[in-house]
């Protein structure tokens, strides 16, 4: 297993909310201020800020404050690590399935040999 510098579960938790996922999608095009990000959402600013801070804690975005303006930017590393994690899950299940197939086919052959050539009769 690869080492991850972020908590993958935090990333998935962050993305599992439609508002947060939409924020991340909006940031794919480039950094934006909180007020422009919040504009399309019918949501009070404090509620919107809660989503922003969940995203920031997960490592998906970074925010910086200049004067009274807070700007959000996407941190692509978190997304790519989450994707890598998914890739590993897939590899794990693929490999597990291959081992299972080998095992079951061997088991079946052994049982057949046992049936056709019994070692002792009852």
């Amino acid at each position, binding site marked *: 297993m690869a080492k991850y510098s972020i908590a993958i579960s935090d990333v998935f938790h962050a993305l599992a909310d439609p508002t947060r996922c939409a924020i991340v999608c909006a940031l794919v095009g480039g950094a934006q201020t909180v007020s422009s990000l919040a504009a399309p959402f019918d949501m009070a600013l404090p509620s919107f800020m809660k989503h922003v801070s969940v995203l920031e804690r997960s490592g998906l975005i970074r925010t910086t404050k200049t004067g009274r303006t807070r700007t959000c930017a996407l941190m692509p590393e978190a997304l790519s690590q989450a994707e890598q994690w998914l890739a590993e899950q897939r590899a794990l299940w693929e490999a597990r399935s291959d081992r299972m*197939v080998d095992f079951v086919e061997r088991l079946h052959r052994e049982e057949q040999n046992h049936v056709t050539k019994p070692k002792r009769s009852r």
Partner: protein
Amino acid sequence: MSPSPSAADSVVLDDPNDLVISRLLRAPRSALWRAWTEPELLKQWWCPKPWTTEVHAFDLRPGGAFHTFMQGPDGGTSDNPGCFLEVVPQSRLVMTSMLTGGWRPQKSWLGFTAIITMADEGEGSRYIARVMHPDAATREQHEKLGFFEGWNTVITQLEEFAGTLR
């Protein structure tokens, strides 16, 4: 060891969040069922050598505990308590990591539900595993993020990694 099936054979894309694995076996469904439901057999293939599997609980009924514990040569461990949701002899097993025995909810690191199906096919049997992870993003959002293309596009880069798990 049988050769690796092609990507097209082993993966069926449906919901982009689900990992679906399909295999055709030269063995009857009864053998497949045994390999999954007899802990002594399951632990022989569950994790890659030199890792070893201990089956801490295997209560094969809906709500019954399914708990595996894996140990690596360098002291690494992986503890996986879970629960069966559905048990249809010789054809279907559903399990989750989000509950433990007796349907008790647990905080799972990243929860999943796996649906294992087994069916007769030709001279042998068809095995399909669908592994679902929680995710509320829409397909359009996935496309926008370029994310979760993983299932589709990373197959080649994974072959090497998968090889180390066998």
